[in-house]
C-alpha cells in the first residue's frame, strides 16, 4: 500500500533522529546541519530509506529545538530561531514560559505540515520542467544557484562568489573522468587524493570541526541559565484558543518560510526575519510585537519549520540544495549512490514517498516529544558542552575514517576543512557558498564540457535555447538584486557605526 517498508526500525530511527536533533537544536552553537553531518556515517549501516527517517528526524528536530533556549534564555539555539526570542522571551519573563514553548511547538508543527504539502505538490511540477533540460540548461541552473547564494551573502557578495568558485576549484581536484587524467593534485598525494577530497569529511569538517575550534577559542562556556522559567508559577496556560485569529498568520509565515527555502542558500534566519516583519506589517497592533505577542512567536516558528519542506524542493527537482542542511543531505544520497535531480522522483518513486512520509512522521514525533514533556526537555540547555564535544570529536573521526572504509587521508581532510571553515568564519566568508560550489563543481564542469563538445566548441550554444536564455535573465536579475541589496546593506551598516 505505502509503496515502501515501514517497520519498527524506521519509526525507531525517526524518534532517535528527532530526539538528537532537538538536543543539537537546543544547544546554542550546535545546529541541525552539524547533527546531520555527524550522523551521516551511521547511515552506511542502513539502507537509504531507513537512513532517510533518521536524517529527516534530525533535520526537523534540529530546526525545532532552537526555540527552547530562544524562549527561556533569549539565545537562539539555531540561526533560524532568532526571531523566536523577540516575543517568546518576554512571555517567559512574565511567567508564561511553558505556554510560549507550547505555542512555539504547535506553530512549528503547523509550519512543517504546510511546507510538506508544498513539497508534495510542487516538486513533481518543477521536476517535469527540469527533465527537458539539456547540458546547457543544467550548466546554467548551477550557475544561477551559485549567484543566488552569493546574492544573499549580506554585505559580502564578492566574497560569497569567490568562495563558491573556490569550492568548484577544489572539487575539480583529482581524476577527470573523460580522459582519466589526474589534475591539480601534487605528486606526493596522487594515491590518497586520486578522486579529490571526499565529500563526507569535507562536510563534517566544515560544519562540526570548525565549530569545535570556535567553541574552544571561547573556552567552551555554557550559556548561563539564571532562573528556571518553566518551574516558576505559570501565570497563563496554553490553550488552542491562542491560535484564534492567527490562521492567516500561520499560513502566511509558513508560506514565506517555505518559499524562502525553495530559493537556494537563504537559510532559516532570513526566512524567519522576513516572516516576522510581514506579521508586523499586517498586525492590528504592531507595537505589541517584541513585547511578548503571541502573533510574533507563531510567525517565527511557523516560518522556520516551513523551511524544512521548502529547502527539499530544489534538491529533489533540480539536484540543487536549498540550504546548508540540505547540502549535507545531498551527501547522504551521494554516499548511497542515488542521483538527485529531475529524474529522482520518476526513477525512485519509493524513496520519494519515503521522504514525504519520513517528514510527516518526524513532524508528528517532534510535536509529541516536545509538547507534553516540555518541562523536562527544557533541561537540555543545561547539558554541559565541554563533555559533549569530546564525544562529537570521536564520532567525527570515526565517521571520516569509515568514509572509504579506512583511510587516514580522510581524517586529515576532516581537520583541514575544519580549519578552513574556522578561517572562513573569521574572515566573514560564507561557508555555505563554498560547500555548494564544492558539491556542484563536478557537475558544473561536466555540463560545461558536454555543452561545448556538442557545439564544436562554440560559445553561442549557451545562448541558443529558450529556457537557457530565461535562466540567463534570472542570473542577471539575481546579480542586479545582489548589487542593490549589497549597497543598501553596506550603507546601513555604515550609518550604524
Amino acid at each position: 500500500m505505502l509503496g515502501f517498508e515501514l517497520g519498527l526500525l524506521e519509526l525507531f530511527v525517526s524518534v532517535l533522529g528527532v530526539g538528537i536533533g532537538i538536543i543539537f537544536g537546543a544547544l546554542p552553537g550546535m545546529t541541525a546541519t552539524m547533527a546531520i553531518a555527524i550522523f551521516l556515517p551511521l547511515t552506511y549501516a542502513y539502507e537509504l530509506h531507513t537512513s532517510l527517517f533518521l536524517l529527516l528526524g534530525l533535520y526537523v528536530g534540529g530546526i525545532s529545538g532552537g526555540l527552547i533556549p530562544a524562549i527561556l534564555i533569549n539565545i537562539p539555539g539555531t540561526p533560524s530561531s532568532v526571531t523566536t526570542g523577540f516575543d517568546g522571551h518576554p512571555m517567559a519573563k512574565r511567567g508564561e514560559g511553558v505556554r510560549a514553548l507550547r505555542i512555539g511547538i504547535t506553530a512549528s508543527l503547523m509550519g512543517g505540515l504546510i511546507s510538506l504539502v508544498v513539497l508534495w505538490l510542487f516538486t513533481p511540477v518543477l521536476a517535469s520542467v527540469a527533465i527537458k533540460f539539456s547540458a546547457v540548461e543544467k550548466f546554467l541552473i548551477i550557475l544561477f544557484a551559485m549567484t543566488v547564494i552569493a546574492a544573499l551573502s549580506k554585505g559580502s557578495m564578492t566574497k560569497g562568489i569567490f568562495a563558491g568558485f573556490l569550492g568548484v576549484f577544489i572539487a575539480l581536484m583529482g581524476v577527470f573522468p573523460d580522459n582519466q587524467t589526474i589534475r591539480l593534485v601534487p605528486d606526493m598525494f596522487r594515491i590518497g587524493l586520486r578522486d579529490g577530497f571526499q565529500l563526507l569529511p569535507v562536510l563534517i569538517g566544515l560544519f562540526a570541526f570548525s565549530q569545535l575550534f570556535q567553541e574552544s577559542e571561547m573556552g567552551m562556556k555554557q550559556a548561563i541559565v539564571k532562573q528556571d522559567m518553566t518551574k516558576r508559577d505559570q501565570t497563563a496556560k496554553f490553550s488552542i484558543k491562542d491560535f484564534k485569529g492567527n490562521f492567516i498568520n500561520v499560513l502566511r509565515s509558513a508560506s514565506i518560510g517555505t518559499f524562502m527555502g525553495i530559493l537556494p542558500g537563504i537559510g532559516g534566519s532570513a526566512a524567519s526575519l522576513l516572516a516576522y516583519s510581514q506579521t508586523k506589517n499586517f498586525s492590528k497592533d504592531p507595537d505589541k510585537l517584541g513585547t511578548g505577542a503571541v502573533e510574533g512567536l507563531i510567525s517565527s516558528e511557523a516560518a522556520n519549520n516551513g523551511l524544512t519542506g521548502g529547502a527539499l524542493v530544489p534538491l529533489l527537482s533540480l539536484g540543487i540544495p536549498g540550504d546548508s542542511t540540505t547540502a549535507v543531505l545531498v551527501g547522504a544520497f551521494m554516499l548511497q549512490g542515488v542521483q538527485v535531480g529531475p529524474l529522482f522522483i520518476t526513477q525512485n518513486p519509493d524513496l520519494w514517498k519515503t521522504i514525504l512520509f519520513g517528514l510527516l512522521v518526524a513532524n508528528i514525533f517532534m510535536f509529541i516529544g516536545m509538547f507534553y514533556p516540555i518541562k523536562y526537555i527544557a533541561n537540555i540547555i543545561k547539558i554541559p558542552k565541554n563533555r559533549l564535544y569530546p564525544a562529537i570529536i570521536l564520532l567525527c573521526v570515526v565517521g571520516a575514517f569509515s568514509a572509504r572504509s579506512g583511510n587516514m587521508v580522510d581524517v586529515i581532510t576532516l581537520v583541514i576543512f575544519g580549519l578552513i571553515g574556522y578561517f572562513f568564519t573569521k574572515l566573514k566568508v560564507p561557508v555555505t557558498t563554498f560547500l555548494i560550489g564544492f558539491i556542484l563543481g563536478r557537475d558544473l564542469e561536466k555540463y560545461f564540457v558536454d555543452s561545448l563538445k556538442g557545439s564544436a566548441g562554440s560559445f553561442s550554444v549557451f545562448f541558443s535555447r529558450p529556457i537557457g536564455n530565461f535562466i540567463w535573465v534570472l542570473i542577471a536579475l539575481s546579480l542586479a538584486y545582489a548589487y542593490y541589496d549589497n549597497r543598501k546593506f553596506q550603507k546601513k551598516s555604515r550609518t550604524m557605526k
Partner: protein
Amino acid sequence: MLDFKLPIVYSTSHTVMPKIIFGVLVFLGVILFIQYVMKTRKEGGRLFSLKGKRFFEENYDRVKLFGTVVILFGFIVFMKPLGFILASIIFISLFNILYAGKFGKKDLLLSIGISVVETMTVWFVFGYLFDITLP
C-alpha cells in the same frame, strides 16, 4: 554575433575547466583586493597594517584552542600505531580533561571514565553491530 570558440580536445580536456575557474578566481581576487584598498583609503588607514585588527576573539582561551589542535594532531598520529580503542581512550580523555578545566582527582577519573564508556560504545555500535571499519 561575436562567437568565441573553445574546441574540446580529448587529451587536454581535463585542463579546460580548471583554467577557467582559476581565471575567475584571479579576477574575483583582484576585485576583492581593489575593494579592500578602496575601503582602507576611505577610512584613512594604512594598506597592510594589522593595527586595530584582531583575528582571535578578545581574551580568547589560548589553552583550549591550541590544546585542541595539538591533541587532534596527536590523535591522528597515534591512531594507527596504538589501535582505535587505546588511542581513543587516551585522547578523548585528554579532550575531556582539557575542556573540563579542572584537575582534581575526581575530575580526572570522571573524564577518563566518560571516554572509556564512549569509546567502547562507539566501538560496539560501529565496529561490532554495524561492521564499519575502525582504525
